[in-house]
């Protein structure tokens, strides 16, 4: 059957060396328009250019190698650029003494493990963050597009960044306030595994009101995470270390967890950020309070 293209479109395709059978028609009834033909060439020549670049092994200074960037990485890149260029960000650094919390964690960790979960410091951090967000609602909000008002969220969906082979993906713990520590300890590892296997649904990746990124397992002392719009704040956790802390009369060895809160300065001030960070530290330093406030 003849292709749905007018004689002038066919002539154009012939002139430009385009095989009409490969062109998808955007016109009514699938008609192939002259623009479809031209776009097809654009797509083909971009592909050809990429392929040609990939084939180059040298530049002016020496040997090079081309590596393809996955579509996920490109999407992350675009999102990061957009965030960086539109949000005035500041990171408030603080530390939490988690010596008691770590002891608590160790006491219950094998029980949770038997049940198929993983009781990590991150689970406690999620709980502390939720409690703090309840007291500082402006950190659990979005700036409305008019810029004139803040949309305070009355639900608490905590995104937890997961490092996968393809890049950083953030699955979401929906209504984390309604989940017990045990429930979170069962849910979070499963969610992380699902994320690494790229099996998460779209729902599981959407709707976060606040994000936590814990790089402590890998190492490092501090980093400045980038706010993930439409959220207005993000918490970055680095490696906990034993440090000598002055308790008023002497130095004692305490387990210190460094963290930072990056916030959208259009919405949140330095003082509030400092208070928020302090509150999280307080909650983590007094695990009993997590029990009271959770």
């Amino acid at each position, binding site marked *: *059957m*003849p*292709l*749905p*293209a*007018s*004689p002038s479109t*066919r*002539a154009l395709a*012939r*002139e430009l060396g385009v095989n009409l059978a490969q062109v998808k028609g955007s*016109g*009514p*009834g*699938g*008609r*192939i328009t002259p623009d479809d033909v031209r776009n097809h060439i654009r797509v083909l020549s971009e592909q050809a250019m990429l392929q040609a670049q990939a084939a180059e092994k040298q530049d002016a200074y020496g040997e090079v190698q081309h590596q393809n960037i996955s579509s996920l990485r490109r999407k992350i890149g675009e999102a990061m650029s957009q965030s960086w260029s539109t949000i005035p960000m500041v990171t408030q650094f603080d530390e939490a003494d988690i010596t008691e919390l770590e002891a608590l964690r160790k006491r219950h960790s094998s029980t949770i493990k038997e049940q198929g979960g993983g009781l990590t410091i991150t689970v406690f951090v999620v709980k502390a963050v939720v409690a703090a967000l309840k007291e500082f609602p402006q950190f659990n909000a979005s700036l409305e597009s008019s810029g004139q008002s803040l949309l305070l969220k009355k639900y608490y969906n905590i995104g937890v960044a997961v490092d996968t082979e393809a890049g950083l993906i953030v699955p979401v713990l929906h209504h984390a306030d309604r989940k017990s520590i045990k429930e979170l300890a069962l849910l979070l590892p499963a969610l992380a595994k699902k994320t690494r296997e790229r099996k998460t649904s779209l729902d599981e990746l959407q709707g976060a009101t606040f994000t936590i990124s814990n790089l402590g397992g890998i190492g490092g002392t501090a980093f400045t995470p980038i706010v993930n719009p439409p959220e207005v704040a993000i918490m970055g956790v680095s490696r906990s270390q034993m440090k000598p802390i002055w308790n008023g009369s002497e130095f004692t060895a305490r387990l210190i967890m460094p963290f930072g809160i990056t916030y959208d300065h259009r919405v949140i001030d330095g003082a509030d950020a400092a208070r928020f960070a302090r509150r999280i530290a307080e909650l983590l330093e007094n695990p009993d309070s997590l029990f009271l406030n959770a």
Partner: protein
Amino acid sequence: MTDPNVFEHVDVAVIGGGPGGYTAAFRCADLGMNVAVIDDSPTLGGVCLNRGCIPSKALLNVARIVHEADEASHWGLKMGPPEIVLDELLTWKNRIVSELVGGIGQLCNSRNVKQITGRAIFIDSKTIRLEKSHIGRLNVDRCIIATGSLPIIPKPFQIKSDKVWDSTDALNVPLIPERLLVIGGGYIGLELGTVYSALGSKVTTVELAPTVLPGVDQDLVGFVQRKCERYFHELRLNTKVAALEDTGKEVMVTLENSDGSKETLPFDRVLIAIGRSPNSRGLGLENTKVEMDEKGFIKVNKQQRTSDPNLWAIGDVVGQPMLAHKASREGQVAAEDLAGHSVSFDNSAIPAVVFTDPELATCGITEQYAKANNIAVQVARFPWAASGRAKTLDRADGVTKIIFDPDTSRVLGVGIVGPHAGELIAEGVLAVEMAALASDLAGTIHAHPTLSETVMESAEQFFGPSTHMYRKQTRK
């Protein structure tokens, strides 16, 4: 007298000056090439102009008037059957032909296209020997072969008799026979049958197939067949002609029916119109790299190139459909290819018109074709009984039919039967070429009161009832 010592050179030689040949030659000249047209007749125009399309349409016009004179008595116009003055008719027909031929000649002169009369035979791809010409030999860089076709006269009918006609003889109208047998119910047979029955002959048409115009959808053929049955003396289908014998007084024809029974009937003249074959023999093509298929058609690609790098071919000699307009389009493609332009014969639809009364015209796919190839289609019909214009012509014997893709509503084919179908089909061809949708045709304003509205309402029928034709079934 051919002088073998006279040589000439041209860049491009077009062999055959019919509609394909002269169109190609003119396009080549317009694109700046040095061209010669070679035809064994001093008058250009080929079969179409001299012994085909043009003379037959002139005569068919007369047939139409004869029919209308008859119909007019219903309208309060009493004319009585017209008197046919044969030599005046022929003078008029011949004048039309000679004026058009003259016109082609003038167009050649304006464009500096050299006209060579003679029979061209290839010595090799770049050398042509001319017979019956004042030039002995022509050296050419490239050639376009447009030698057309010849009427098929099967061996058993090749009796040496001036009472057995081919279409050329019939169009010369040497006389109006009392009893004419037309062998073949295709478009040529029906058109010539229409002419002769209007001129006063008792026409008997025999056709091997169960229907006239095989290959055309039956719902359209029906209108033509019914009229032919009225105008002709007899229309015999499923009938074979077993033998012809010229007794001196008349031709005795033995007809064989589908049940095997035979009967022998006398006729004054017998017209053989069973088809045409490509004129590819006797041209010296064996001295070139040109390849032909088993039927004698020259094999060409979409740029009209043959297997020989110096030779192109167009028109009836390369294949079906054997129509002048197909030949002209191929002629343009060949000329553009010779000029180095990017070109291809990729038309989606070639119209075909049968100039009987009523006319029948089709383009694109037929219902028959769709069925045979398992192509899902939706067909919408608008009967001319519902057309105001058809009523003013007193010609409700017509229908406009459009074949659509059921999912996209794209127009895939159009079939029209009724007076002026040949003119109306042009919109259908454009619709198919442009991949128009039902809504494009239905949404375009067609002048009222004209027959073209039947095309618009037919398209409306794709969706449900149209203004002048109600039917219950609707589609979202």
